[in-house]
């Protein structure tokens, strides 16, 4: 843990140090790559700008709503398919076909059907998150060791107890993996929809800064989004590792 942290810090310092030097010494075009000190100053200014914060909040709300809608739907569909294998035989191939197609190609269709407002962003986030969470939820059900269920029954577990005391903890690691990947997909979906066609949101801002050649703002936006998504991902990964540490090699033990 300590070594990893030291590694991250060294990497970050080298990245920003190298960037600052490259920019200051004009090894790169400073208009295309302004130094991080300048980008950082812009970022600080942006974070104090209520309009920027409102755009950021709007995007976060789109992602949040999409995720909160997609997650329970996807988990329960995955659970149903995992428990009813005759359904899985029909639907699993369809799910995998859909996962294989880049969903971005459907964006113009979404815009035609649902406009370019809040609802369309959320919907595009949902469809991005839904399938990857579903696939992991299905795998989670299939990963439950059957002998554990038999043992619990012999010890008098009721059907409800089998779900809450065996299924749930056994499924949790893969469910969490699904949720984490689903969150990443959800963010991708929402940002893509904002960048492609939108009036508000951080995706829209980043895209328009690029078009207007406002490179410091553009880089500030990119840095901020990178930072936030890394934080979200790491937090979810931490939960995943914490829960998964028992299941390392003990699934039938």
């Amino acid at each position, binding site marked *: 843990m300590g070594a990893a942290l030291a590694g991250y810090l060294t990497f970050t310092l080298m990245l920003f140090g190298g960037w600052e030097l490259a920019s200051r010494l004009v090894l790169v075009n400073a208009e295309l790559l302004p130094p991080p000190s300048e980008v950082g100053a812009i970022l600080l200014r942006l974070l104090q700008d209520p309009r920027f914060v409102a755009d950021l909040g709007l995007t976060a709300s789109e992602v949040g709503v999409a995720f909160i809608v997609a997650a329970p739907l996807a988990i329960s569909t995955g659970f149903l398919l995992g428990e009813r294998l005759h359904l899985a035989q029909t639907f699993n191939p369809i799910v995998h076909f859909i996962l294989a197609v880049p969903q971005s190609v459907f964006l113009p269709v979404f815009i035609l059907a649902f406009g370019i407002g809040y609802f369309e962003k959320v919907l595009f986030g949902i469809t991005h998150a839904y399938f990857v969470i579903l696939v992991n939820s299905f795998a989670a059900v299939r990963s439950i060791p059957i002998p554990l269920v038999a043992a619990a029954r*012999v010890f008098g577990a009721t059907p409800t107890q089998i779900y809450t005391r065996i299924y749930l903890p056994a499924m949790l690691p893969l469910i969490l993996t699904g949720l984490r990947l689903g969150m990443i997909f959800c963010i991708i979906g929402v940002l893509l929809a904002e960048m492609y066609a939108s009036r508000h949101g951080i995706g829209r801002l980043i895209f328009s800064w690029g078009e207007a050649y406002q490179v410091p703002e553009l880089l500030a936006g990119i840095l901020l989004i990178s930072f936030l998504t890394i934080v979200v991902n790491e937090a979810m990964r931490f939960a995943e590792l914490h829960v998964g540490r028992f299941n390392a090699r*003990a699934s039938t033990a």
Partner: protein
Amino acid sequence: MSKSIIQVDELGKTFSAGRAQVRALADVSFSIEEGRFVTLVGPSGCGKSTLLQIIAGLVGPTTGEVRIEGERISAPMPDKIGMVFQDPTLLPWKTALANVEFPLDLRGVERTVRRRRCAALLDLVGLREFADHYPHELSGGMRQRVAIARGLAQDPRLILMDEPFAALDEQSRTRMGHDLLDIWEKTGKTVFFITHSLTEAIYLSDRVLVMSPRPGRILESIAIEFPRPRELDIIGSEAFGSIRNRIWHLIAEAQP
């Protein structure tokens, strides 16, 4: 003469596999007296585990019935029947102690009561210091000891054991058998044990039931009369060898 605790009457089990019918058990009858250690031996796939699952109440028989203390078994009876499986089947996310407590936890036994009782059981199986370890931190033999303690947690009358030491190496297996006898003598439970090791069966048991290949039926019931407590030395004795030969011939001659 002690009374029989469990009675198996003309038990038959047929599975349907697609259109084919597989007859796993045919006409199995026997009974076990209270406090005895009885072992069932038979070739792989003879229906031993099916028989045990029926007694555990996990699957229903096609014909016949099993009674425990006169009561017909149609579902698991956790207060009367404990079980130790071939895999330890411990919950990986619970500590050794919490795993032993699990059956009591399911039935809502108060935490301090179950903790005290289960700590004593862990002590009985020699794992007092490992109460807070997780299953993946324990060896195969230790996991099976936890499973034995868990099987005893609800203080059942009968313990079913489905080849519990099959996955262990020879040395741990012998050691576990020896310790199991010790536990059995201390607790006075009735044990119904399944194995395909003839040595294990004879060393452990008061009586060995010999089962035929599928469809399984009881070929013979052989009383084992070595005095207890038993030492491992008896395994090398002539008397032990002749019983083993007899069982071996019974099984070999029954092969189709």
